């Protein structure tokens, strides 16, 4: 069983937000909404500050609270790669998943259902990278299978210092950031 995820090199990201535009164009995200976004975090005191620019999105958690809290089963794990998806026809727009998500990765589509990052599963199933990964000008994003020990993403995690976001929420996120 595959476990899809991303590894993002924060030392290479310049914060151009090409990933955001690519996602909006690929997935017809309505204007004013986004499935991924860029966060800039500065820690410390000038002149010794540490800067981290991150592109963030749904973490496709292995223990996803949005799936377990969904009353209709619209929020579900996809057969391939454990990707968390929303079935738009079954979603009643109750927003329980939005409240349960520690990453604030979901939004209500103007048509009434909840929408979120799909890891561009329609592209991945054709053997392509997600749109955001494929457009990154600094090649700071890697998409792959964490269950395959020889995949690029597994090797990056073995060789580089990394962290995930809000690991204390205990949801087992599948996006890691290299520092």
């Amino acid at each position, binding site marked *: 069983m595959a476990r899809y995820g991303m590894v993002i090199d924060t030392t290479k990201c310049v914060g*151009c*937000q090409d990933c955001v*535009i690519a996602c909006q164009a690929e997935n017809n995200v309505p204007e004013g909404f986004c499935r991924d976004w860029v966060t800039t975090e500065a820690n410390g005191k*000038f002149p010794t500050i540490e*800067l981290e620019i991150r592109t963030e999105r749904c973490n496709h958690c292995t223990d996803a609270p949005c799936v377990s809290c969904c009353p209709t089963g619209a929020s579900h794990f996809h057969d391939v790669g454990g990707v968390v998806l929303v079935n738009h026809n079954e979603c009643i727009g109750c927003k329980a998943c939005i409240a349960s998500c520690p990453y604030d990765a979901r939004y209500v589509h103007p048509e009434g259902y909840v929408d979120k990052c799909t890891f561009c599963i329609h592209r991945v199933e054709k053997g392509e990278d997600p749109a955001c990964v494929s457009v990154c000008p600094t090649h700071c994003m890697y998409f792959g299978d964490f269950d395959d020990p020889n995949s690029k993403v597994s090797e990056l995690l073995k060789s580089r210092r990394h962290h995930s976001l809000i690991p204390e929420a205990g949801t087992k996120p599948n996006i890691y950031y290299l520092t």
Partner: protein
Amino acid sequence: MQLKEKGFDPVPKFTRPEEPPAGYFRLLFGRAPVHTFSKTQSNRYLSGMMEENEVWLNIDVARRMGLKSGEYVKLKNQDGIISNKVKVKATERIRTDCVYMVHGFGQRSKMYRKTFHKGASDSQLITKYKTDPIMGGTGMNVNFVTIELEA
């Protein structure tokens, strides 16, 4: 050798830049990776991600001046030119004697529908530049501004 023949010092000595007068900040400008120079600010998608520019101000200085991120101010340069209103960004990412702005905002043409009169223009405030005496390069980060509270 060539420089010496022309009467210049072949190993130029460092000259200290002018310090801003009291109450003034050195105006720096630069680019954001979202926008390309001053040409994409009116693009519908890109304008959605970065609608206007901000003036970066050291967080300690901002606190001393009683300014918070998101408040609008105007900048006035040493020649009395006053900018369009611009948001303050109080941040650790800049030194205390400078302010920074992203170039390309504060457009004055109504044809730029998405970006007309949003943010402030750094080039409007650059009324002075310096020329390197030897190679002729122009330095444009040599203007000083004060921060004027928006009435």
